[in-house]
């Protein structure tokens, strides 16, 4: 275990704890704030993987913009626990069974895949997450999917404007 690995495990534990807190927080605002912490922790993972550009863009876009909008909506709607419709027992049971089966499936997949076996954590390797290689890759090898996704964004923007004008 070197310092990087300790950092990795501490960060992973932090991510998982924050993610659990998102689910079990009673107050939706607290959930959103925990979710912001999750994004920060994930950005930390990106930095450990030598993907600094990805890390910082993750913070700007998710933690900085999208989560602010989440907070906006929740603050304005003023969601309170007692006003929320209570779910029936049957619905809860179905949810637990469905979620549990999905979890089992995921664990089985990880167990079956031998490439995960006792492999050490890959840290500080690769350069694709740095800004120069990433830009080169996006504008040479993947230029068509990149441009198509920008058209998708444009149509989403036009759609938002049209809905906003109504």
């Amino acid at each position, binding site marked *: 275990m*070197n310092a990087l690995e300790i950092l990795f495990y501490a960060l992973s534990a932090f991510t998982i704890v924050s993610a659990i807190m998102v689910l079990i927080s009673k107050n939706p605002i607290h959930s959103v704030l925990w979710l912001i912490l999750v994004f920060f922790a994930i950005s930390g993972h990106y930095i450990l993987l030598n993907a600094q550009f990805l890390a*910082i863009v993750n*913070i700007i876009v998710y933690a900085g913009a999208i989560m602010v909008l989440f907070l906006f909506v929740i603050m304005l709607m003023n969601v309170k626990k007692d006003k929320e419709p209570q779910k029936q027992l049957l619905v809860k049971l179905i949810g637990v069974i469905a979620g549990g089966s999905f979890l089992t499936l995921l664990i089985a997949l990880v167990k079956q895949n031998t490439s995960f076996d006792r492999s050490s954590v890959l840290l500080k390797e690769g350069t694709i997450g740095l800004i120069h290689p990433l830009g080169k890759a996006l504008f040479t090898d993947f230029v068509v999917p990149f441009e198509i996704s920008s058209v998708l964004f444009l149509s989403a923007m036009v759609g938002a404007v049209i809905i906003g004008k109504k």
Partner: protein
Amino acid sequence: MTLLAFDWAYVIEKLILIIIIVLTTLLITLYTTFGERKVAAILQDRPGPNRAGPFGLLQPLADGLKLIMKEEIIPTAASKWLFILGPGLAMTASLMTCAVIPWSTEVHLFGRTIALQVADVNIGILYIFAVVSMGVYGIMIGGWASNNKFSLMSALRAASQAISYEIAMGLALIALLMTTGTLSLKTIVEDQVAGHWWNVVYQPLGFLIFFICAMAECNRTPFDLPEAENELNFGYHQEYSSMKLGFYLFAEYVNMIMSSAIMASMYFGGYDLPFFDESTVAPNIAAMIGIGTLLIKIVLFVFLFMWIRWTIPRFRYDQLMNLGWKKMIPLALLNMLITGALILSKL
């Protein structure tokens, strides 16, 4: 023992640098509040604070002491932890920016070469952006946790203002990045030192847009709508008292200093003293001259902020939004197009 195999001298060096920078920033901030009152006094033709100490120089200390000694009130209906977290976040976010600002060239001390920049990351400008977008949370959390209508309204105003002006700011920066070709602030400053002109010559429109957006991001007049007294009582910090209020007010001044430092570094040559060849003096002296130059540039920008604040009245909220979305963003896009065309024609 591989666990502790760091370069410990490096860690200590960085720690000392961080402490010095943060303390200096706070000290300058303290005197910026004094400067603000003096500038206001000069513009309004009155003497200003002149009682505490010679020329009133001890006034900021008295103000700080007053804020600390006041009773701390947390409203019973407030969400306590978030109420405390709000001002802390605002202050942290504004101080975090100073990590990537290159304060000067290197100094040589005790046989070591110490770069006067905490972190030269290759994503420096994006880092500043991330920190700026974090600053919104301090205001939003504080405004919501106060459990007061006016605080919440003002927090929402502040957040939507910040988000709107961040876009134009980013677009203005993209044009700058197209000319410099790097995201590292250190390289940007070094290119300006080595080159003939500062970046403001290549990006005059970009600088203007950036300056206006920086003013909006710092919640300074004419963009101080989150604090509009006559509509919202006092703003998002209405329920705050004592040093928690002080943190919010201080964070605004720290933001102002940091954005001045960023503007000086990106558009006005950073620590570059014009018409002076740094290589003719010893490196340590050159570094000191660099720090002094950057500080003077920062003070000039801060003075410009204050001058504007005490000259121009506040916008109405719809005017602010119109300016942000319908004028700043198209202008920034135009600036980007022109820059792109010029770069293309030079190739």
